[in-house]
């Protein structure tokens, strides 16, 4: 069933399908990060990141989510923000482990309009020895809607770097650093940055 679903998705995306050559990847990570706003307020939270990808030849499709995260200013006892990210992207591998990405990011929360932006980027994964590899994702959106209450849209940049270590065949542990920067038209910056750690599976 899983394979059929993957084929359907791939066929819908790229018009290709060959059951046995479809690969799957699942990533579960914790993101221990700090939310900093231009107003010099910052809070520390831990969030789960879940991502899943399917790949056929050089084409891939990825869906990822940052599960609902609440940023609470403990010193002043108020909720600064609540967010849930839902992202998806199509990828095309141009050279060995270099994949170009084009996707859509949606950040939703209670009582606010969804912030939505088309992003583009590149992801990399390079072996450095038999069990170890480095990986990274760089993405940017030139226009994320509803980011700024006054001027509307803003920009979004993502930097995600890390090291993975294969512990058994298709299972790897990873550690890294991840930063999201949202910049409004008024040049106010909202930065989410911190360490990641997790596990990845390939099937």
């Amino acid at each position, binding site marked *: 069933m899983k394979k059929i679903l993957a084929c359907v998705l791939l066929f819908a995306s790229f018009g290709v399908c060959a059951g046995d050559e479809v690969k799957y990847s699942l990533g579960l990570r914790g993101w221990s990060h700090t939310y900093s706003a231009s107003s010099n307020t910052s809070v520390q939270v831990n969030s789960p990141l879940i991502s899943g990808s399917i790949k056929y030849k050089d084409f891939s499709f990825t869906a990822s989510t940052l599960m609902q995260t609440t940023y609470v200013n403990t010193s002043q006892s108020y909720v600064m923000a609540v967010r849930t990210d839902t992202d998806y992207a199509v990828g095309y591998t141009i050279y060995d482990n270099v994949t170009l990405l084009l996707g859509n990011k949606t950040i939703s929360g209670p009582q606010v309009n969804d912030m939505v932006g088309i992003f583009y980027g590149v992801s990399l994964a390079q072996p450095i020895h038999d069990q170890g590899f480095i990986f990274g994702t760089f993405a940017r959106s030139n226009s994320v809607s509803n980011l700024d209450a006054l001027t509307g849209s803003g920009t979004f940049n993502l930097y995600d770097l890390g090291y*993975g270590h294969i512990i058994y*065949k298709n299972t790897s542990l990873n550690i890294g650093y991840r930063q999201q920067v949202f910049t409004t038209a008024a040049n106010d910056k909202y930065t989410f940055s911190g360490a990641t750690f997790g596990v990845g599976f390939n099937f």
Partner: protein
Amino acid sequence: MHPALNFFKVQLLFAAVVLLVAPFLGLNTAHANNRVALVIGNAQYEKNPLANPTNDSRDVAAKLQKFGFDVVYRENLKIRQVGGMMKEFKSKLTPNSTALVFYAGHGLQIRGENFFPVVDADIQSEEDIPVQSISLKQIMDILEDAKTKANIVFLDACRDNPFDNRSRSISRGLAKVTAPSGTLISYATRPGSVADDGKGRNGLYTEHLLKVMDINKPIEQLLKNMVTSIKGETKGRQEPWSEGSFEGEFCFGPCEDPEAEKNKILLEVAYWEKTLSSGKIEDYQAYLANYPNGTFVAVAKRSLDALLNPSTATAIPANSVSKQEVDKLIKQAEEKLRQEASNRSNLEKELEKAKIEAERLKNSQTNSASTKKLFVSPSF
């Protein structure tokens, strides 16, 4: 169960595995049905003879025959023999043929066209060359007319121009060729450059060609290997050059694919593990017989030697020798025991390495970091 029976079962299992994977190892020895070669070596020129071309042509012809080629062979070709040779070569070609041409000797170019002078050539002017030489274009025309499946041309002919340059149109080395489709041409050196006639039995290019012909890999890979080795040996002065291509795959012998290589290694490791677990003299001997150039040959020989020549120190009566001699023998025995322990330890280390390598090979088929196809799911 008796260890010998156990090993017998292992061998049966091994034989079964070999039978199963043999089709994937490229062990099929059948060659293309129609392989035709034209091999020419010109050395005994009346002016400026060369040392090696006839050695080159003889060695190449012998090897091609071994690989199933029907060889039209000529050496020290004279002008009156050219027509007959071309006719014979043409008569053997069919649309299904794989045609191979090898030429060793002097070569020169006039206005981009390549000629190989016959040994009795007396070239006084540019006009003499086309009528006293084999024309490469003529060979190409024959191949084109025959509509052969694939053509491979080796030209070890870029040696120094032996004839006085009485015309500015005559240039050193050979020119690039307009070849029929499905043709791969390999030159001893870059167009316009000069190749080494070699210091040994063969010219440098042919010497390397003869070596790579035994490798069961596609011709394109062999040519790359030759470039690397010849460039290295001449410190970059001579660089073989090739152009053209054809559909499909050509190997002189049976083509082996990379998967087959991996399977071979895995089979050998499995065999070696069983030999180790048995520890019997005949099993080490069987390993050495089956894998005379195997990964574990050195260790197997040492182990076999240790098994065949056990320590004799305890067999010597203590009272027949002096105390110093007894001490010396004891030390020797201890040293031998240490050596055996060390051998065993090295053996285990090598086995561990082999296991890691086997695991790496297995993983490379799925998703290890050593593959260049890592697949990591990003999040945004």
